[in-house]
């Protein structure tokens, strides 16, 4: 009987293929993944404003306490202009006066960033926000 038959094979643990695969996975995830700090902002009710509708008349639910027209960098509440950075403090003050729901109307100059900043500021004072958008044919 040959001695080589009885010789036990030595098991060698080869790490190189494992390292190769792990490196490939690492490079894939490094290149393809985003680790940007995202945040999610819930979008409240959106009500269409058809031609002739009054902006302060939502379809259902409680009547809004205040209507804000969002422009670029500020909101207009009636004749008063409130810079968006000051809106959180104003909303907090108005909350103390019993106003806790708002209707937002976007002016033609308003951008998405303005809407987001306004929603965030009003959300901090736990206000209910309804957004009004102009439907086709609306003024």
């Amino acid at each position, binding site marked *: 009987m040959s001695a080589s038959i009885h010789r036990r094979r030595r098991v060698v643990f080869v790490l190189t293929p494992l390292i190769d695969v792990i490196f490939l996975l690492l490079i894939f995830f490094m290149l393809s993944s*985003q*680790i940007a700090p995202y945040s999610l902002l819930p979008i409240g009710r959106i009500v269409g404003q058809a031609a002739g509708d009054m902006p302060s008349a939502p379809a259902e639910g409680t009547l809004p306490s205040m209507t804000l027209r969002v422009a670029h960098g500020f909101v207009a509440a009636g004749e008063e202009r409130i810079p968006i950075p000051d809106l959180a403090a104003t909303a907090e003050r108005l909350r103390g006066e019993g106003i806790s729901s708002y209707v937002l109307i976007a002016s033609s100059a308003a951008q998405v960033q303005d809407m987001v900043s306004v929603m965030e500021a009003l959300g901090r004072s736990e206000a209910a926000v309804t957004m009004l958008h102009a439907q086709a044919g609306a003024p």
Partner: protein
Amino acid sequence: MSIIPAQPRRPRPDFTLNIINVVFLLLLFYLVTGSLAKQAEIEADVPVTANLPLERLPRPLLLVTAAGELFIDGQPVSRANLDAAVREVLARHEDGAFLNILADRSMPASLFLDIVARAGAGGAPLRLVTLRQRLEPAK
């Protein structure tokens, strides 16, 4: 033959395991913190917020480019078919899934609201994806 006894051979340190440990940790980091994103989603100029909790880039994701083009999870969608496409994509996800909207921060708010109203026409819950940015301390 030398009179001085030969020094015992020191085993050479093997750094392979250490390297694998570090690479594994990097891999885990990217797996846990990263979100796979498409090129257009990375390039979008996301609106910023300051006080919302951090999240990963969620799915399903409706990308609204500055030009008003729409993509749901990378697939182009026309504005007319948006409602149907949203229903279809939400049906593929678990109950209570939100449609997450990633819109360019500089796009007009009126156009954004029109798209959001179309996307939410079927009653889909909506969230807006923003980028959390630490506010500069007031000087």
